[in-house]
């Protein structure tokens, strides 16, 4: 997403915060497909993803006035609401999760094509560079957790690795990400 498009979303959010329904409708139109896609990866069932999108947008309407305090890019703020709601309501089955290997491996490839629309290009590059610094298994584990919302035990089942190993990959991978992002001035 370009800065201009991000500014437009920020404007729409601030208007929605003051009760402007037309602005809120436009905000929904501009972001629904992306956010539905994000939720669907995690909850995997369309009815559940629809519920997540509904709950999330009702929450966005109710909290739009708080957005300015969050100091995040608008899509980051909205994505966090959708991911949190998805992780809250995801219904786990015993079946093997349906993993999109292509998506997961986009991250694993050094030469992966850049995101079609990175909200903030500098940050998108930082996170990509930093993921590139991780060991392959750490990177794959983190990508599976982020995109598909897998728990530690689901990760272990999918990767056919002991639970403890998976937990270590996640923990060390995140710590290395943090060090790298801090070097680039992005994260804590």
């Amino acid at each position, binding site marked *: 997403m370009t800065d201009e498009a991000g500014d437009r979303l920020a404007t729409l959010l601030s*208007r929605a*915060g003051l009760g402007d329904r037309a602005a809120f409708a436009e905000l929904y139109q501009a972001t*629904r497909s*992306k956010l539905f896609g994000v939720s669907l990866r995690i909850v995997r069932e369309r009815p559940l993803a*629809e519920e997540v999108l509904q709950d999330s947008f009702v929450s966005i309407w109710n909290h739009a006035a708080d957005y300015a*305090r969050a100091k995040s890019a608008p899509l980051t703020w909205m994505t966090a609401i959708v991911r949190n709601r998805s*992780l809250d309501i995801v219904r786990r089955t015993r079946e093997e999760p349906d993993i999109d290997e292509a998506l997961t491996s986009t991250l694993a490839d050094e030469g992966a094509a850049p995101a*079609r629309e*990175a909200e903030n290009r500098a940050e998108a590059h930082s996170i990509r560079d930093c993921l590139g610094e991780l060991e392959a298994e750490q990177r794959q584990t983190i990508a599976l957790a982020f995109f598909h919302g897998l728990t530690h035990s689901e990760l272990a089942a999918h990767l056919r690795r002991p639970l403890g190993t998976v937990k270590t990959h996640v923990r060390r991978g995140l710590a290395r990400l943090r060090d790298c992002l801090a070097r680039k001035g992005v994260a*804590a």
Partner: protein
Amino acid sequence: MKLSLNAAQELSAAYVLGTLRGPARRRFERMAKEEEALAALVRRWEDALSPLAANVPPVDPPARVWREIESRIAPAASSAPPAASGLWRAFGLMAGGLATVLLAFFVWISSGPRGEPVFVAVLSAQDSGPRAVVSMHEPNTLRVHIVKPWAAAEGKSLELWVLPTEGSPRSLGLVANVSGDTMIRLRTTDARMQGANAFAVSLEPAGGSPTKLPTGPVLCSGAIAPVRKT
């Protein structure tokens, strides 16, 4: 409970990544709500990781999702289709309480010292009736009449915003939280009034919003009604 820096780092990362689940996730959420430092760590991880979400292929949700959202955020008295008409939240309420609003307006206007205003807006809160009346008087006075002040606003400021048809809300200044009038010097030709179609009052930290946009809850809002041509 106070977390060590290490634990705070690890938990906030696991929370945003999504591997922190179940009761532990909810416990962490409660802690982050109370502790600003923890909330800041979460925001930084969200800023760092969320660009990855741009890689997820978009999927169009069915139209019923929006219909359901609309019905869940609709003001009780409104049946107008909001997307088409662009009605304000408070405006929907006005339809229900029009008689009260008009009565309040006429009582107020008859007590006013000046002549007929150029335009007027009645600002309502979602859970109650009209709370403020804003009117523009020539040549350069915007009069903000608070019908009923807000309780529990101590140490905070009320800020008046004008909402243009396009673009972000613009601040017109602070308003005293007392029954009665605040006069704001403002010309009808002021740039901030370009394309104005509604007003809103938000609750802000003392001295007003630290950003150029409203940061606090909206206390009341209402659409502008022209009274006569300028």
